[in-house]
Structures are given as structure tokens and as C-alpha cells.
């Protein structure tokens, strides 16, 4: 009995939620990000700036306080929050859909030793990390 158990263990077992698999998914995202970080960083800085100008100077000239808070603080916090939200929601909604439906990227990844839960975890980790910065 023990002999068979030993031979069975001789081949390295692949586990669930493998670090190697997660790393593969993340490396793909990082390498891709290096090719488009300029445009995406540009849009995710310009958009909140325009918002801030419009609601800060424009609408802000009509309002001074909200619920006892300074309006500038109110608008500033909100803009930062929406910027973070959008920079994760869009890759999460459209990015993943395009990779799934049109580019068939996920087909390629799942043909490699990566399971669905590792792919999902890896993608979620990446999107969260990216929008956090």
C-alpha cells in the first residue's frame, strides 16, 4: 500500500488556486498593461480633472456647503471615488467581455494549466490592484 502511495506522489501534483497559475494570469496582464498604460493613465487623469473643474468651479460657484461640509471637500472626495470606481468597472465589464467573446484570450489561458477559479481570481486581483493605484 505505501509503495503505491509513494509512486502516486512522485509526479508533482497541481493544486487548486496554484500560485504559478495566478502568476501566469497576472504576468499576462502586466505585460499587456505596459503596452497601453500611457493612454489609459491619460484618460483616467483627464476625466476626473474635467469633472473637478466643472463641478468645482462651475457648479461650485452656486453651492458653498453640503450637509455642513465644505463643498470642495465634498466634490473632491466624490471625484476620486468615481475615478477609482470607473477604472475598475470598465476593465471588469468591457475588458473581460472582449477577452472572453472576441479575442478568445480566456480560451488560450484555460487551455494552459490554469483553472477557471484561478483565472477569475487573477483577473479580479489585477483589476483591483490597478484601480487602487
Amino acid at each position, binding site marked *: 500500500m505505501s509503495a503505491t502511495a509513494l509512486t502516486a506522489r512522485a509526479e508533482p501534483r*497541481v493544486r487548486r488556486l496554484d500560485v504559478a497559475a495566478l502568476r501566469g494570469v497576472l504576468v*499576462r496582464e502586466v*505585460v499587456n498593461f505596459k503596452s497601453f498604460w500611457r493612454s489609459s493613465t491619460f484618460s483616467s487623469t483627464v476625466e476626473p480633472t474635467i469633472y473637478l473643474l466643472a463641478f468645482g468651479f462651475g457648479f461650485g460657484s452656486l453651492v458653498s456647503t453640503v450637509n455642513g461640509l465644505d463643498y470642495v471637500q465634498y466634490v473632491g472626495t466624490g471625484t476620486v471615488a468615481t475615478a477609482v470606481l470607473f477604472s475598475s468597472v470598465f476593465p471588469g465589464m468591457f475588458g473581460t467581455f472582449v477577452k472572453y467573446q472576441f479575442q478568445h*484570450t480566456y480560451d*488560450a489561458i484555460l487551455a494552459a494549466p490554469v483553472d477557471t477559479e484561478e483565472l477569475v481570481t487573477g483577473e479580479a486581483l489585477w483589476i483591483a490592484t490597478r484601480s487602487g493605484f
Partner: protein
Amino acid sequence: MPALAICLRGAVKRYGPVTAVAGLDLDVPEGTCVGLLGPNGAGKSTTMRLLTAQAIADEGELEVLGHKLPDDSKAARAVMGVVPQLDNLDTTLTVEHNLLVFTYLYRVPAAERQAAIERALQIANLTDRRKSKVDELSGGMRRRLLIARALVHQPRLVLLDEPTVGLDPQVRQELWALIDRLRSEGVSILMSTHYIEEAERLADTVTVMSHGKAVAVGRPAELVAEHAGREALEVYGAPARLLEVENEARERGWPTRRTGTSVTILRTDSLNGELPDGERRVATLEDVFVLLTGEEIA
């Protein structure tokens, strides 16, 4: 009896009311190239997806390189390479980066990573295009890269899903040479195709699929001899004349097939009676294919 790289027994895969794979038996002995031949919709691509466990079989036993599917599919995927039918390269990345990503996905040890990329570049003959983005490559280059990408981890088994679809004859020949080289290095290959010539040239054995089942298995030459005989006769003419020939042949019990512009009478070497005028030719695997998978388009 050599070990089997792929062994399917009674594999069934249903998509709602459609049964894509209906009790398929398939053997790929190690170190050989097996051609999976069948018309569109015969279940070739679904079979490929079953082998990577991207589709889970409803019934049957599946084994890849000694790993039972779907439970041990991850271990099986780690030692096999997959060339998909649809190009799914990362188009905004360079050739080199595409390969780099796959060395990570296929867990090539860090020390061997660079060597693996160089080797794949050489296989794809893209060493001097390494810095080019995939967008800038021609269709043939992209396909070569797609194949090389499946080989970064030196797999023991390669699945090729219609590897030469939509490519010109020169590129196709180039890919054939590449596949032949792989086989000579001892890699087991399962290649689906509906190009007869491709199967005839590359495959050690051919499995002809129709409606999700294997309808014939054997060496290409044996299949031709068994199902289509040695010689065939092509009778050309106007559509009315073709119909006449076909009816006449049916009355005499001669096997025929339509070839678009002509009617082919098969097994002419073993038929009695006077044959109509036409061009004699050697029977081919295409005759077998049409005989076995039917003339009607589903």
C-alpha cells in the same frame, strides 16, 4: 503496443438538444500523428475542447497522457500544447512578449525561460521579427507564432485544431514541414482538419468523424483501399448527362459519388460491365471521406 497519448472511450458531449460528440472512441499512440477528419459540424472542435477539459464530457472515459479527465486535466494540460482554430494572440504585444506570457502560463522554470523563447522564435522562424507587434505580422507569421506559442514548454502532446485553415499553399507547406518535424522528434499529435491532402500527407492514422462518431479508423492508404478501391472513373458532362450516368450506375449497383462537375464511379478496377467514357484516376482519401460522411450538406 505503444502507450496511448490520448484514449477516448464512448465520449459523449451534449449541448442542449444537440449531441456534438456521440460516443467517440479515439486512440492516439504516443509519438504518432493522428488526423481527425470530418466535415464541418462533425464534432472535431468539441473533441478538442473535451481534451483540454474546456468542455466536460457527459459520458465516457477520457485519458490524456495517463491523466484521467476531467479530474486530472490540469496535470494533462501542463504537458500538452494547444493550437486553437481561432487566432487568440495578444495583438498589441510583440512576438517575444506573447511567448514570454506563455512561458509563465505553462510554468517554464525561470532559468529556462529565455532559452524557451529563443527556441520558439526559431521554430516559428520569427527571430528577426521578435520586436514586431502581432498586428504587424502576416497571416502566415501569426499562425506560425500560434504554433510556436503552444511549444514553449516542450509538450509531449500537441493538439492542432485546423491548423492551416485560410492559409495560402506556401504557408501551408511550411506548416506541414513544421508538424512533420515535431513528429520526428517524438511528439504525439492530434490534428483536426477537413483538408484531405493534409491528413493524407501528415497523419499516420486517420479517424474519420461524422455526426460525433468515428466512422472509420486506419492508415490513409488502407482506408482508401478498403472503402474506395484502387481506381475511380470521372465522367464529365452537362448536369442532365451526369444524372443519367448516376441513374445507370445505381441500376447496376455501382458505387458513385458526385464531384461537383462530374460523377465519379468508384472501384472501377473490380466492376463488371461496360463503363461510360471518362477519365480514370487513382482512388483518393477524398473519395473515402465523401463516401463515409455523406454527400449532403447538413
